[in-house]
């Protein structure tokens, strides 16, 4: 499976370079077909394991499905943004896909760290490919903040390695299986410090509040097929990496800042900030980005609670969110293109002007708002049930309120987008209306959309 995954992105890079060399216009289509073939092979190879509930195979399938949809959407996206250089786009895209697969397949904490860091660099470069000033600013903040977060996580990893250096196993020391067998040999205070660094450091990549400031910028300025991968796949995979570490290196029950405590704390902050921020968003992609913060908050609480039911709910939330959010990001890109703007007050009367997009958008937003039977409603209900079982009354209150606010905000934006019947305030900052000069057509388009 690992070889197949190495081959998948590698062939994409070769195809992209060949496409430029041969000046083949249909190379994006060939790449999409190749990624679809990888999906078919992956589905066949993991079929039985997926139905037995093997989480790693399920995540692998999710990543491949998202990569396939992203590859198909890239064809449409690149037609809308002719200024983007095809070979550079696909090279970074392939590296990003490879990094996502590596995060899933990693059996070693250090490999996970390297894969997460490479996913940052590849996706950051993809954001820059948009070519406009806002994208450049977003990418800069994304790479610098995420790199600092991951440097802190590396301190934690070094401490864990040092705690087990007596084993003399080399990098195998950091294998999750080895950590879970020998974690008790690490002094509790060292485990505690390492946990704080690793949860907070990788939590920066998850977009957990208060380390989230880069996320709305990067996700909203990235190419839409990449935003789908960033939000749908990367956030959840980084959270799963934290969960794997926390499960492998538990702390004494009396520890104040243990991994589960930190996950619940950051999760509560994230759902509060994410849901409230939805109310005041004026940019279609930032709306989805803040929704992602809220969603990863729910997942973090689930992993933090740690009961089988809560973990099942968090995992289901991750899978449903991946499917729904990636689709919504693709759609938001096309809506921005047809309306020549990302401003929500300009994306109105969708039901009359673009009925096809309107139906898909409505279904996606309703699913995100938690309307049953569209997936997330189901997993959120299980989450509340898990909280009830563990007598977490305050968590139930906070999550219920957050879900209510999220539902209100998303339906408000949906109704306004479909029929434009609600009056938006005429707020429009001068700063956002200033077009910034840039030579490329993509940059000009990006600025116009901003």
């Amino acid at each position, binding site marked *: 499976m690992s070889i197949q995954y190495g081959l998948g992105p590698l062939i994409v890079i070769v195809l992209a370079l060949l496409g430029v060399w041969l000046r083949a216009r249909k190379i994006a289509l060939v790449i999409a077909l190749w990624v679809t073939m990888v999906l078919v092979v992956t589905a066949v190879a993991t079929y039985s394991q997926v139905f037995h509930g093997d989480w790693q195979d399920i995540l692998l399938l999710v990543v491949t499905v998202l990569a396939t949809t992203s590859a198909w959407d890239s064809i449409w996206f690149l037609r809308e943004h002719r200024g983007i250089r095809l070979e550079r786009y696909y090279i970074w895209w392939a590296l990003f896909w490879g990094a996502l697969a590596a995060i899933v397949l990693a059996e070693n904490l*250090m*490999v996970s*760290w*390297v894969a997460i*860091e*490479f996913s940052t*660099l590849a996706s*950051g*470069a993809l954001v*820059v490919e948009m070519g406009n*000033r*806002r994208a*450049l*600013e*977003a*990418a*800069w*903040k994304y*790479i*610098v903040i995420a*790199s*600092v977060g991951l*440097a802190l996580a*590396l*301190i934690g990893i*070094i*401490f864990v*390695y*040092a*705690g087990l*250096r007596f084993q003399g196993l*080399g*990098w195998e*020391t950091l294998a999750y299986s080895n950590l879970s067998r020998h974690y008790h040999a690490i*002094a509790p*205070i*060292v485990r505690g*410090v390492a946990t704080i660094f690793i949860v907070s450091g990788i939590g920066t990549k998850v977009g957990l509040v208060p380390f*989230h*400031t*880069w996320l*709305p*910028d990067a996700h909203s*300025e990235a190419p839409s097929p990449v935003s789908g991968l960033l939000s749908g796949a990367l956030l959840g995979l980084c959270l799963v990496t934290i969960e794997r570490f926390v499960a492998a290196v538990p702390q004494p029950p009396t520890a104040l800042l243990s991994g589960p405590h930190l996950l619940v704390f950051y999760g509560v902050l994230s759902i509060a900030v994410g849901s409230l921020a939805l109310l005041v968003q004026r940019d279609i992609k930032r709306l989805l980005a803040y929704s992602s913060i809220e969603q990863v908050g729910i997942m973090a609480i689930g992993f933090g609670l740690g009961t089988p039911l809560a973990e099942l709910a968090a995992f289901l939330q991750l899978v449903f969110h991946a499917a729904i959010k990636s689709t919504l990001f693709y759609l938001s890109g096309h809506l921005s293109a047809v309306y020549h703007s990302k401003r929500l007050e300009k994306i109105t009367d969708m039901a009359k002007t673009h009925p096809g997009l309107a139906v898909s958008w409505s279904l996606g937003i309703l699913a995100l708002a938690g309307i049953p039977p569209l997936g997330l409603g189901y997993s959120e209900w299980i989450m509340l049930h898990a909280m009830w079982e563990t007598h977490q009354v305050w968590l139930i209150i906070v999550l219920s309120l957050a879900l209510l606010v999220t539902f209100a905000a998303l339906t408000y934006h949906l109704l306004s987008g479909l029929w434009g019947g609600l009056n938006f305030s005429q707020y429009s900052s001068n*700063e*956002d209306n200033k077009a*910034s000069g*840039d030579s490329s057509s993509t940059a000009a388009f990006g600025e116009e959309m901003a």
Partner: protein
Amino acid sequence: MAVAGFLVFAGAVGLLWSRNMVYGLLFLAMEGMALTIMVGSTERLSLVVVAIMAATLAIKVALIPGSMFRVISRWPTEFRQDQPLPFWAYPVAAGLLLAVGHVIELLTPTGIILHRTLFFYGLASVHLGLLMIVSRRHVMSQVGALVGIENGLVVLAASVAGALPTFMEFGMLVDLLVAAAILVWMSHRIHRQFKTIDVVALRRLRG
């Protein structure tokens, strides 16, 4: 090894203190040289160790400072200087260094620290690098700070683990190379599109 650690720490102080970008690059190269020597003195010489030394030398002494210099040298003189360090940064730096001493006192009983002095140099370099990111405004200062933090991490790792596994060493090196390459490329684009190198100009998006 302690001398190499001290040179990395001195490089971190120099990076933070220096306004001149070219001096900053010299400090980075000095850190890279010290780390190369440290790798050689930590482990018994073997083919792998020589490969790590060569990679460290190539990446941290030649490639990263060299590519940064190449970009900076194309800019007009006024873009080769950073703003003065804000006043608040001095007491914060002192506080961060004192905090390292406290961390050492806290961790010593666990037996995790092999070399207390080296640990001080490593963690202090990381702290100063983090301070540099929040206090310096030149885009290249931020790139230099990230490289400085990574250098500090290598010293920190040597102080608690002796030597890191080869995979970790190479993983960190390649990661740093790619990160620095992308950030230097972006610095060039920021200068071209924003007509400035001041990160304060990056304020259209506010989280």
